[in-house]
């Protein structure tokens, strides 16, 4: 049996990778994927806890998170496509019309 901490640390590392990806990557799609990575690392945390404390609810939460992530993905992609159509670019630095 793998200790709980291993999962938690793995999840934390994945989460941080997601954060770093979000902050560093310039491509909108990649940033978006980083968010998915963050959400999935949370899922991992949920499952790990759920198994550790022997309560099934955590795994059910994962379902909800996945569905919500999918909905978010669909909407996000649609928004990005709309932007791409107007701007012909997926570079996040071009999302800079409004400032100050």
């Amino acid at each position, binding site marked *: 049996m793998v200790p709980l901490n291993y999962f938690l640390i793995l999840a934390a590392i994945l989460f941080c990778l997601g*954060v770093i990806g*979000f*902050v*560093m990557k*310039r491509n909108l799609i990649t*940033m978006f994927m980083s968010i998915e990575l963050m959400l999935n690392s949370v899922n991992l945390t949920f499952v790990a806890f759920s198994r550790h404390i022997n309560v099934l609810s955590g795994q059910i939460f994962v379902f909800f998170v996945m569905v919500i992530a999918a909905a978010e993905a669909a909407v996000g992609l649609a928004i990005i496509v709309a932007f791409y159509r107007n701007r012909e670019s997926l570079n*996040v*630095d071009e*999302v*800079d*019309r*409004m*400032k*100050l």
Partner: protein
Amino acid sequence: MNFLKYIWLIPLLPLVGCFFNGVFGKRFSKVTIDFFALGSTLLSFLCSVGAVWQLSRLQPEERVFNLNLFEWIPAGVALTAHGFANFSIQWGYRLDPLSAVMILVVTGVGFLIHVYSTGYMAHEHGPHLGGYYRFFSYLNLFMFSMLTLVLANNFALMFVGWEGVGLCSYLLIGFYFHKKSAGDAGKKAFIVNRIGDAGFMLGMFLIFQTFGSLDFGTVMARAAEAPIEVYGSVGVLTAIGILLFLGATGKSAQLPLYTWLPDAMEGPTPVSALIHAATMVTAGVYMVSRTSVIYTHAPTAMMVVAVVGGVTAIFAASIGLVQNDIKRVLAYSTVSQLGYMFLACGVGAYFVGIFHLMTHAFFKALLFLGAGSVIHALSGEQDLRRMGALKNKIPKTYVTMLAATLAISGIPPFAGFFSKDEILWQAFSSEYGRWWLWLIGVVAALMTAFYMFRLIFLTFYNESRVDPEVEHHIHESPSNMIVPLQILAVLSVIGGFVQIPKFLFGGFDGFERWLEPVFKHPATEAGAAAVEHASLGAEAGLALFSVVVALTGIYLAYRFYYRPSSAPDRAMASAKPVYTVLFNKYYMDKIYDALFVNRTKDLGNALWAFDRGVIDGGVNGSGWFTRFTANVSCWWDKWIVDGLVNVVGFTVKMLSYPLRILQTGFVQSYAFLMVLGIIAFIWLYVLR
């Protein structure tokens, strides 16, 4: 009819007038607008008279009438220093001798000014301008707010009126919206007032925290039981007093928040008379008197009030000495006279503060209206340097203004003499009085007499310096402007007889006794006892002295401005025909230079060159002092107050740089900032 039951009508009637004129005014004829504006105010005045009459029929200690209309703000139970208090604020009115004086002044003077305005603002009525109905709608709204302020029976409702009058003041100052300076002045007034209001609100919260109520009656009863705080220490009552006074300095234009008032002269003259002389600016004095119990228990706060009042009195008066705009002279005069009122309150003589408030309302409203009449006659000219010799052209205005000037200068038997003299006497003799407070008052009185007669001489005497274009248009104002002037002139003459010092014909203390129930509690009684043993002779002596001082001020003004040709400057004698005009202009510019532009020139020397006979070391000294205060004022206005108003602009500019760095518009720098925030949060929570 029981008027007391209907005191809610007093503020409501002007609101109704405001509503009709504001909503339908555009389609009304001038007469209809006048009907609603004047009718509502007059009815309100009559209701006030009736209510006060009935109040006066009661026994002195029963003269408190509370009328709670409905529960305005309930907010459940809160833990305060008085245990759990049920927080509930009524929409309630309180008529007692103090608010009685105030509503009579507000509705009475207010009505006269309404009448005056129908003449003064007549040219605003027109299909395309349409400012006329707007003006009266605002003016009535102001009446509503002001009456709410003075009739409120708790701090929160008072604050409603407090903010309301600020709002109306803003609207009316900016009435001539096409002038940019008018808009700026309105904004300045509003913003400076808000700083004071922050103090008021804090004081109010602290009052609730301390006394568990915001109702005047309850708070005062509980405050009266509190021990008197030690002079020099800052206890909770002192804190409340100072915070409330901060609010008062904003509304009543005291140091350091006074500068908005001179700028407020951008508004129409009746507004200056009603709001910036007779009523709104006195709200601070009213509030301090209303909370007199708290101040009496906080000697430190009283000292603050007295000192700020005294310093403002002398400070503003010295600026008034050299202003060329007729309305600005009066504005600084108002600031100075308000300082007098605070001086009176600060030495514990609240009834004198209110007394002076009342007489001041008469003569200062009259002065402003008179100035308005002059401006009206001169087709909008406000510069004293382009007036002169109007005495015979507008005689009615002249006579009434002269009465007011004599009153404000403190010449017996005009109203100002009684109130001003009483203030000086109290500053000298009362338990909280100090000889130097008295001295400040006397110097301010000297200056007041000087600048007021300077105004009179420059306006009505000498040769005319009026623009020839304007000259042949000069006309006396219509009767709807003159009659209010005459009524106010009568009041300026006889208004002081309600309170006559003991050494004159045995004295009469009707006003003091009328207000006694409001200000009487154990602490003041101790103070009153202390005053008793002061001698009658000293009082008479000081009164005589202050009259002499006033006469000196008049004489100085006379020497400087009435008979300048007698100045022993032979060199100028050859150019006699244009002498007076030139001389005056030159003189003005000289002072102006000395004061504001060319600071290296010594004012004393400038004066010395013109009138060797009058000038002495004292004038030299006062010249230096004038220049000094004017410089300070200039500096204060430029760096602190404009800074305070434009502080915003300045700070904003400073803050825009970090903001520009933060708000880059880039998603990822936002995300990065968020990550920093998250790290901060986790650090705060977990690691700290």
